[in-house]
Every structure is written in C-alpha cells, then in structure tokens.
C-alpha cells in the first residue's frame, strides 16, 4: 500500500505547514493596527473562496508558467512523485492554514479582554503576550474544531490525485482499471479511510484530554 504512505505523509506535512502559517495569520488578524490584519484578511478570503482543486491546478500548472523560465522548467522537471507531491504539499498546507487561521482568530477573540490587559500591565511585550498567555488559552478553546480540521486534511489529500500523485484513492482507481475488481478495490480503500479517521480522532481526543485544565468540581469562582 504505497498510496497510504503518500496520503499520510502529504496530510501530516501539510498539517505542519497549516499549523504554523495558520497560527501566524490568525495572530496577524487580531493585531490592533497596521497593515498585518488587512493582509491576513486577504490571505484568508483568497484561500477560502477558491476550490481546493483549482488551487491545486494553480500550484501545479500555472505557477511554473508565471515564474522565470529557468525556475519554471526546474519545477516541471522534478522527478515523478516529487513533481506532484511538492505542489500538493504547499497547496494543501496553505489552503488548510486559512481555515486554521480563522479558528485561531476566533479563539483569541473569545478570550476576555482583561487577559490582554493583565499581560500588558505585567510588562509583557506583544510577542511574549501571544506566545505565553493568549495562544495557549486560544488553542485549548479551539481544540474541538481543530480536531475536525485534522480529520478533513486526510480526506483532502485525495484531491492531489488530479495532479498525478498516486495516493490512496488513486491506488483504488488504478487497481480497478487493471483488475476490474471494483468492489474490492474501493471497499478496501474506504475501510482504510475509516481507520485513518478513527485514529486521527483518537489522537486529537487524547491531546484534548491532556490539555484539559483542572477545575473545581461544581463550577468554582466565576469572575
């Protein structure tokens, strides 16, 4: 099952990119002033309002044509799996980043404004304030929706078959075309996706439990 390997590495690689870029863009959107919040909005609206498949084609077909000829040729001549894998990785990573950015922004904005005031009153700079105070809390808030996104990224890897990456779904199609055992080919792959979804959910569920903060039974003090 080589296809499974490509599906998993594409999903996990893109997830890493998405977490990093998504967090940065999400934070940028919550900054009080300057150009960054606007740039963040442009990023999110662009990547959210164009279908993933069209973005896939953009990275694979269009970008090499727009770059200087030398660079474009170098990209087109990458060896087979990488020539599809790298554009797919960038595409899926940046696409998912826009969705994570929205969640991070919502998480930060859900925090009471007093948290930001308290951190500034203690002399924290903006970087430390986000890193130590706001983001750790925001991520706890958005963990459930993040779980959804993590499960979605495995499904979205299938779009990479359109630019020639032989991942899980493409494997099923190939087996079907070569053997005509339609039911078996697609059946096995469907089950594999189910198992992946279950595992992804398990992983996130464990993280959620580990990140849970202790609280007083029965509520405790409400400020």
């Amino acid at each position, binding site marked *: 099952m080589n296809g499974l390997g490509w599906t998993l590495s594409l999903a996990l690689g893109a997830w890493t990119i998405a977490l990093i870029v998504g967090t940065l863009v999400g934070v940028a959107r919550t900054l009080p002033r300057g150009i960054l919040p606007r740039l963040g909005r442009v990023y999110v609206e662009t990547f959210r309002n164009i279908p993933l498949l069209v973005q896939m084609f953009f990275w694979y077909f269009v970008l090499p044509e727009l770059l200087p000829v030398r660079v474009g040729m170098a990209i087109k001549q990458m060896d087979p799996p990488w020539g599809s894998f790298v554009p797919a990785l960038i595409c899926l990573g940046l696409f998912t980043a826009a969705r994570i950015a929205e969640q991070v922004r919502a998480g930060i904005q859900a925090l009471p404004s007093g948290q930001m005031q308290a951190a500034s009153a203690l*002399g924290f700079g903006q970087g430390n304030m986000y890193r130590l105070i706001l983001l750790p809390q925001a991520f706890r808030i958005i963990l459930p929706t993040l779980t959804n996104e993590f499960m979605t990224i495995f499904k979205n890897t299938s779009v990479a078959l359109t630019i020639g990456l032989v991942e899980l779904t493409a494997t099923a199609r190939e087996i079907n075309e070569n053997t005509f055992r339609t039911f078996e080919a697609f059946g096995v792959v469907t089950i594999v996706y189910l198992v992946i979804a279950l595992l992804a959910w398990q992983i996130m569920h464990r993280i959620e439990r580990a990140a849970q903060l202790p609280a007083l039974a029965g509520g405790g003090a409400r400020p």
Partner: protein
Amino acid sequence: MIEINSVSKSYGSFQVLKNCSASIARGEVVVICGPSGSGKSTLIKTVNGLETIDSGEINVGGFRLAPEVTNVAALRRSVGMVFQSFELFPHLTVLSNVTIAQTKVLKRSKAAAEEKARSLLARVGLSAHIAKHPAQLSGGQQQRVAIARALALDPEVMLFDEPTSALDPEMVNEVLDVMTGLARQGMTMVCVTHEMGFARSVANRVLFMDGGEIVETAAAAAFFDAPRSERAKAFLAKILKH
C-alpha cells in the same frame, strides 16, 4: 511619586476624563471613589498606560507619559496592577502565574523567581495552593494570587481597580486584609473601590470623581465627615444607606 496633570480623554464624542489633575506622594494610599461611569477605572488605567490619553501628561516615578509616548514597557515594570476580575492566567498554575513575568519580563532566574513567588504567596496566605490552577481557587484566593503576581515585579506603585467588586461578600475581607497589610508596609497605593470602611481606615486621601472630573480631593476622615461638594454628599448619602 505620581503627578497627573490636566489629563483628558474621549471615546468619540463622549468625554470620559475632563482635565483631571492629582498628585500622589510616595507611601501614600489614595482611594478613588464615585458613581459608576464617572471615569474612575479609566483614570487609574491611564497611570500605567493601559488607557491612552488625549491631552495632558502623567509622571510616575520619573517616567513621563503623554499622548505621544507609546513605549511604556519600563513604566509597567514599576507599576503593579490588580483587576476587578482577577485576570489570572487560567492555563498556568498559581506558582507559574507569579513567576512568569519575573522570568520573561525581568529575566530573573527560575530559582530566584520561584523563591520570590513562594514568599509572596506565603505572605498572602496561599502557600498550600501553589500547585493548583486558578479555576480551583475561590474568588478571594484568586484575587490574593493576583496581588502576589503584581508584587513579584517589585513595583513602586500598586494600582487596584475595584479589587473586591467581583467577590462574594464573605471573601471581601480576606482581600482587604492583604491590601491593608501592604499599606502599613509603606506601599504607594491607588485604589478604585466602593469599600468605604477600607477607605476611611486605611486611605490617606480620597479623590471623588463624577462625570469624568475630579470633583473633590480631601483627607479621608474629612471627606466622610464633611464632604464639601453637593455631588459628594449625594453620593455618600446613597452609598451609606446600604
């Protein structure tokens, strides 16, 4: 220690602070009181730059704050602040709440910061709770942690913004006791509060605000026994009825 000179501030067309001036000496305890919406909280937050000002200037221990001054990091290190809703960091333990600014802002070593935190937490009577998270504490305990957190940076001034308003009545005293102790040790304190008993027994002076103005400044005893302005009389009559 603190000089507030002709400070004004507006939100759009609404003027929250109108030409406020006050002077607070080192070691003095000043209570700011007045009806809600009078600008008390806004005024106290201008002192450490949490609220910007439109005109005038503020001097805190040699640091000059004016509308155009934006870098207030140095000021905040010497001014501690306690909030109405505590604002402890819920994802950190009690001990980390008190150490984090020491290590990240003042760059103290972890060991030194923890030692300081333990002694401060002992001082506010919370030694038994240092490993807990804020949500596991009562409101009064949380506010005492917040005081320890502010003291950990060795501030020269402590600001209190209605520190007991969010507390159940039975927890008010434990927080006021800590504040009283602090005043007795000579801390310069500015407190926005409705606790008139505390104001009368601990404060040196009272600033009475109404409608964004500082209407009256008087020694605590004089203010309660013989308020000069009509507005202060009306306010006291209302508040002392309860």
